[in-house]
């Protein structure tokens, strides 16, 4: 919530005063998240950096229209997703591509020191996260690390809110199962799809 109002404030400063400092703050706030989001589609650090840069160039060129954008963060993710798609079409010379069908590479993991858990357990948790289906992992990352609401993730990925919730449920169960293997029998029944 606090972050939302920070973004809205920066959005207004950029629109009204062409405030370069606000532009920079917004970049610093969102650049890394957008980077990892784009990276999961394009799987190249160089391309991901370029695409995120293009997203922010786009933001600057439409600064006059910013006041009419309701949720800037979601808007930037949507642009990032579109640019990623265009990159893939261009790079692989596909006539068109459906982002839902391409394999994703999502970088997300937990840090044992921060959680006061053994590295052995962190290893199990990270293995569970790695083994989540890519789309599921991406949704988990967007909600957990990027702090997006279920509806926002749904808007960005053009899926339903229910799908977002179901995917997160699966992720949570799989991770819990890694932490506490006794849960396995119950959880195993539910792992059919993700």
């Amino acid at each position, binding site marked *: 919530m606090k972050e939302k109002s920070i973004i809205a404030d920066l959005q207004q400063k950029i629109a009204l005063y062409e405030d370069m400092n606000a532009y920079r703050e917004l970049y610093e706030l969102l650049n890394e998240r957008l980077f990892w989001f784009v990276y999961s589609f394009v799987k190249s650090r160089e391309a991901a950096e370029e*695409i995120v840069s293009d997203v922010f160039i786009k933001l600057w*060129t439409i600064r006059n229209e910013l006041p009419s954008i309701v949720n800037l963060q979601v808007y930037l993710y949507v642009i990032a997703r579109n640019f990623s798609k265009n990159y893939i079409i261009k790079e692989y010379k596909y006539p068109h591509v459906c982002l839902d069908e391409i394999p994703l590479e999502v970088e997300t993991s937990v840090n044992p020191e921060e959680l006061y*858990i053994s590295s052995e357990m962190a290893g199990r948790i990270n293995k569970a996260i790695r083994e989540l289906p890519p789309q599921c992992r991406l949704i988990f990352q967007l909600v957990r690390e990027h702090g997006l609401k279920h509806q926002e993730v749904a808007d960005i990925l053009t899926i339903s809110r229910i799908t977002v919730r179901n995917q997160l449920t699966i992720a*949570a169960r799989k*991770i819990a199962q890694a932490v506490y293997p006794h849960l396995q029998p119950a959880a195993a029944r539910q792992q059919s799809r993700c």
Partner: protein
Amino acid sequence: MKEEKIWELIVLKLSGEAGPEQEAELEEALKQAPDLVFPLGILEGIWHSKRNSNAAGTADRFNRHLQRLSNHLSEDVLQYETAAAAPVVRSSRKKYYRRALLAGAMAACLALGLVVVRYSANRQEKVPAAVAQHQVYTRKGARSKLHLPDGTEVWLNAGSKVTYENNFGGATREVTLEGEAFFDVAKDPDMPFIIHTDMIDIKVLGTALNVRAYADEKATETALIRGAVEITLHRSPEKRIVLRPDEKLVVRNDSPALTRPVPIMTLTQLHYLEQDEEPAPMETLWMKNKLAFDGEPLQQVALKLERWYDVKVIIADKALEQVEYSGVFENEDIAEVLYALQLTGNFRYTIRGKVITIGL
């Protein structure tokens, strides 16, 4: 409660989307399923731990981004953007003014006025660093063009002055402008070109722009033809404005009155004179030897006439000062211009030698 339902509630809670009812429902459910409490605690820990962010690399990344931004401003097409990419797309103007500029350059050469280069190395009391200064200025009624040591071309309008240090291009490229000039700045990404005026500083990376900063006028104008510039206002240095091609920034020269909230600056699009074969922005017509007024108050028109024809214009009636005039004149003498203006506005004028009086 079904286990599936419990997990849904857990996810809502972790995502911060559970309402008070759902929170209570979950608490109740956990009492029935105590073996979920421990994994839930770990999950909460995982959920709220943030990945180490690479803040150190962000500054570099942002700088690389700024470089790309300024390159983009001169190219205008995003590599990965297609028409469908974003709901809001702003169209931009065609780039046909390159040749117009050349034509303008030739016209300006023909109209070459008096150029005076004065070396003031001996006036060291004014320049503590003991650096020699070059001053190039034009008289009223004259225009001129000069080449700076780095290859930058500068067209100077009437009654204007450009100053630069002897070591220009050594460590920095900086000039000071009083009056109006058009700069076609030679590209050098490692050494930004900086134009200082009374009100603003303009930082340039390989660009063409028109700057109008006459001390006796109400505003300082920067019109960008191509490339990218970053403008800093002396009055509020925290504001940095990046201009796109075809944009013009107008900064008021006077302090804004507190009672009348007028913005200290406004950003507009350049206004092209479309009737020409090769349309050129109104702001650069002077380079083509054309005197142009673009909806300007008579007060401003008078100042332009004074500089263009080296005359003195007196507006005898204050009521006339704010009446706006538009028009483009080429090869016409002052009498013809005044006659034409008089046709559209209700005033009379008299010419006595170099003094023109306009009244009701």
